[in-house]
């Protein structure tokens, strides 16, 4: 069984004309897999490498640089919540918010709740300091968060 679906393969191929090298499609391909599978498995790395005419180690080299991608031994939960702790958010309670969520969910940053529903991550400035403290859920920002409103967003 292939890790990349036919749809993903078609989407990767759509990118071929956009760049002068196939290697440039590394990040778009990794995002497709991470989004769909919540991690990038070794098999997926090999299949991407195959399509982009690279060695799997080249894909892995890039993948491992960006903290965003998860390897197969550490997939994320169903949802992934990032709480910002850079200076503007810290000044308005970002660290306290994180500590409260750790306490409520019984996990530490980087971990997933026991029921596999939520992964809690530490973020650096999310570009929404006007709404500090803020969070990223998936790839959508939410501003002016409290522990209660984070939980509502995660449920919703």
């Amino acid at each position: 069984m292939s890790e990349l679906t036919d749809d993903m393969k078609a989407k990767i191929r759509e990118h071929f004309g956009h760049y002068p090298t196939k290697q440039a499609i590394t990040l778009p391909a990794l995002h497709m897999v991470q989004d769909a599978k919540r991690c990038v498995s070794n098999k997926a790395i090999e299949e991407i490498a195959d399509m982009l005419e690279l060695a799997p180690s080249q894909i892995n080299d890039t993948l491992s640089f960006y903290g965003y991608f998860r390897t197969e031994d550490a997939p994320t939960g169903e949802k992934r919540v990032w709480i910002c702790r850079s200076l503007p958010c810290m000044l308005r309670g970002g660290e306290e918010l994180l500590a409260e969520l750790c306490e409520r969910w019984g996990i530490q940053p980087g971990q997933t709740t026991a029921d596999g529903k939520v992964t809690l991550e530490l973020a650096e400035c999310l570009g929404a300091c006007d709404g500090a403290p803020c969070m990223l859920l998936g790839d959508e920002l939410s501003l002016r968060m409290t522990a209660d409103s984070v939980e509502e967003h995660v449920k919703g």
Partner: protein
Amino acid sequence: MTNASFEPVLLARINKPDSASLASYKADGGYAGLRKALDMTQAQVIDLVKASGLRGRGGAGFPTGMKWSFLPQNITGPIYMCINGDESEPGTFNNRILIEEDPHQVLEGIVIGCYATRATTAYFYLRYEYGHCYRTLQKAVDEMYAAGLLGKNILGSNYSLDIHLHRGACAYICGEETGLIESLEGKRAWPRIKPPFPAVEGAFRRPTVVNNVETMACVTHIVNRGAEWFQSMGIAKDPNNPRDAGSYGPKLYCISGHVNKPGLVELPLGVTARELIDKHAGGVWKGRKAKAVVPGGISMGFMSEAELDTPLDFAGPGRVGCLGLGTAAVIVIDDHTSMVDVLYNACRFFAHESCGQCTPCREGTAWSTKILERIRSGNGKLSDIDLLLEISSSIGTIPGTTICGLADGAAWPIKTAIAKFRPELEEYIRSGRKSAAPQLVGAH
């Protein structure tokens, strides 16, 4: 022009219904600038942008027209434009709001800039966290292709251009222009040793221009209203300093931290931090006073309360010991906050985001964080302050020990905190207090 009579330029269309659509942009006269530019020669557009005095809004303040003219002449093969939408400098969110609210204003500037530089492909590098921006931009780009504003023979001219959106993966260093290029190429975002500069050898080893999102939005208005209009705003160049390029045009100031009304404010370059805080951000919160203010993103270091009348133009923050104007992201810190916690936060950020290529940056950012952890745990020594100073004076492109400016950005918060708040830091160390902030596991 006084600040009181200033009419917003870049934010003029914000909060209008449907401001992101092509129809509403066109109804407000959008893409007239592009039509105008396509009737000019490429050299004329570059000369116009040069004459306006526009300087890059991404942090370094490099004159935009001059950057464009560094591209090699009479070459064959592609030239690339990379739009820097990585926006990750703590305190900065102006690109996000520009893209969410008025993407066509930015895209029009990009097409004009690409025409002027003869680029036939533009890559819009957008940080991954801006998912909403990504979808807004994709919709706007699709509308442009459908309306003949992108693709072959734009508006019936001989000029053709494609724009591709490219999403990052949550790393600050992708904002450094050569880190961005490496990341675009599918590699780890390790900044390149310069020279060669991107204008000579950039993306895919071809001549490349890298510009910020706000810079491109300014280009749209310069073509529409002219260089003289742009120069009617801001601070003129210092006639006694031949190296001063002046600070012209409108600027988006991001205000965050301990103010009553955090948000985005547009004013002519050169407003003071005090005016921004008191008049435009509702003052410091809870009736308190400011203790320190970051003038342009955490990399620029700190101003003290006494320095708040400094004009925030390209030259102002440097006169009070800061690194520069940076991204004009003003972060206000009130007098109830410990500078030890603030400095720890800054050091931790850079230790987390250093790409690790250069030993002085990788080790210096990690050790400065460890020293501040020690101070925060109540076990600091007075000699730690000199140790921090030594680290901060030996990392960066200014002392010449690193490849990119991230390390200078890591040094400046340390230098300015010690120069301006040394008695507070010493008192903290002597007291042996522990920080009241929550202990977070895996904090860096």
